């Protein structure tokens, strides 16, 4: 944690400097509060740095966790958002729920694949009815379908 804290405090200091340059030329009425916050952040980041430098480096035996799934999900979420832009909310939701439901399932069988896609279709339909029809929230159609219509 010592090294992580040192890096965090340095990143925060760099962010504070950047933020300062972003607001320094604005009129006082708009920049006073952000400047106060930046000053506070600089002071606290320095405190964290001092705290970290004084800290003894301790080796942590953390529980081994599956970072593979974290990477898959993170990529999946960004991919999901991107496909919503392209093919719209409904189709991308079914694909996202179906594929990830199957990938994260420890027992990968044909039945579990069908089950995952079944849940995907059911959840998307329910939310389409609730949001799209009852609440009249226009769900994104995606660039392709917008052009087609």
């Amino acid at each position, binding site marked *: *944690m010592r090294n992580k804290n040192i890096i965090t405090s340095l990143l925060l200091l760099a962010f504070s400097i950047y933020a300062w340059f972003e607001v320094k030329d604005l009129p006082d009425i708009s920049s006073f*509060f952000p400047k106060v*916050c930046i000053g506070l952040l600089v002071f606290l980041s320095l405190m964290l740095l001092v705290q970290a430098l004084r800290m003894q480096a301790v080796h942590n035996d953390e529980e081994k966790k599956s*970072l593979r799934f*974290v990477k898959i999900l993170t990529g999946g979420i960004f991919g999901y958002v991107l496909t919503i832009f392209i093919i719209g909310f409904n189709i991308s939701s079914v694909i996202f729920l179906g594929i990830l439901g199957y990938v*994260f*399932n420890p027992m990968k069988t044909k039945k579990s694949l069908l089950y995952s896609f079944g849940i995907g279709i059911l959840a998307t339909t329910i939310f389409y009815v609730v*949001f799209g029809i009852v609440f009249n929230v226009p769900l994104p159609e995606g660039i392709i379908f917008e052009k087609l219509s």
Partner: protein
Amino acid sequence: MAEMFFTALVHIFQPFNFLFMTAGVTLGILVGCLPGLTATMALAILVPFTFTMDAIPALMTLGGIYSGAMYGGSISAILVNTPGTPSAIATTFDGFPLTKKGMAEHALVTSAFGSSIGGVFGALCLLILTPLLASVALKFGPPEYFWMAIFGLTIIATLSSKNMVKGLIGGALGLMISTIGLSPIGGDSRFTFGFYGLAAGINLIVALIGFFCIPEVLAMVEKITKERYKIAEYKPKKGVPLQVIKELLKKPILLLRSSVIGTFVGIVPGAGGNIAALVSYSEAVRWSKKPEEFGTGVIEGVAAAETSNNAEVGGSLVPLLTLGIPGAPPAAVILGAIMLQGMVPGPELFTKYGEITYTFILSLAVANIIMGFIGFYGSKFFARLINIPVNYLAPLIVFMSVIGSYSIRNNMMDVLIMVVFGVIGYFSRKLNFHPGPIVLGMILGPFAENGLVQSMLMGRASGSIWGIFFTRPISLILIIMSVISALWPFIAAWRKNRANKGGLETNA
């Protein structure tokens, strides 16, 4: 007054009115438990449906939705660490740890009971103390708002007892995030990087879903193994609801304090259930004999947050009914509904339209009791949700988060911001930064900035920029409260040390 009271009761228990109110409570619970759908949104969507209704059933339905949504937010907060509404942020602190311990039903019953008590208390305060409380709210000017925000920020000291510096950094980052967009007074663009979508700032709910929901989902999947792929195992046990209620009834001070805090915060225009719950949670930690247990899964933490955010409902309607100033965003929608019915907030509401107004106020108390029953009997069914395997639950939560953050402004930019905040939240959690202080900073940032800049302008006009901050009576009270609150962890540590030393000497 007594005659009006009985007439109101007759109206409430008319089958048609009662049915609509119960439907409102149920709908509110359902909407509230979905991340991204807030009480304000539910009310705004459903107000048009009440146009054609008479004033009494219309207002009773809306009151039911408001109360139900405040409780509903706690369900997802408890089960999947995702506050359904901003008011349920503080509920996650102990609610989710209870779920992980296999005590989801305990947390859900606590939430239902606390919400019910708080809601009834708030409604009764609304009924009895309205004129008196409204005059207090009127005395709040920019300096008071500024100090209220500072007092709110001192809660970070309680929320981050493990590492105060990291908690404060989180708070400062939250304040920084709140400055994104157009400056509220100067109108200049700040940190928008040329994106028009950022001009209106970062929506609190979008950030909330990002910081609480996505990191939790990522943490969920990193624990998937062949043997373990559920958040926690829920096995229904007999008699849990009664056991929890008996336990809570032994803590009347906690319930009363949380109710009073919720009502008072609700009265202050602009301060919503989220602030009420956070202040109440902080005070519960402060006055507890075992503060170190908070955050590990104790029902007192859930009770403090939930009692307070439902008491806030009644409080937020005090300035609304007397002065036409909504105490919280959902109250603003109710103001619209009242005006649509041809009524104008003010003394007339309690004279000319007294029958309708008193029915509405009393119906809030009844709605909270109905909500308590739904929670009491429904908890064991809600708790079963955590038995859904993580491989289905995790993508479903992401799916709901996406639709929730999109539906706020029908803007894909909000979805992208939510995801980015989520990833930042996941890594910051790895570095022991709790999302609570960041979100608190975001909530209080606009209050602090508006209060600070407006007060400085007022001060400049009166000849002393800073004098105005320290010369008003309510400001002074808030300053004293802030100082005590900020120093409290040190005072508590000193008291503990002294008690330990005393104990050692006695043993020796």
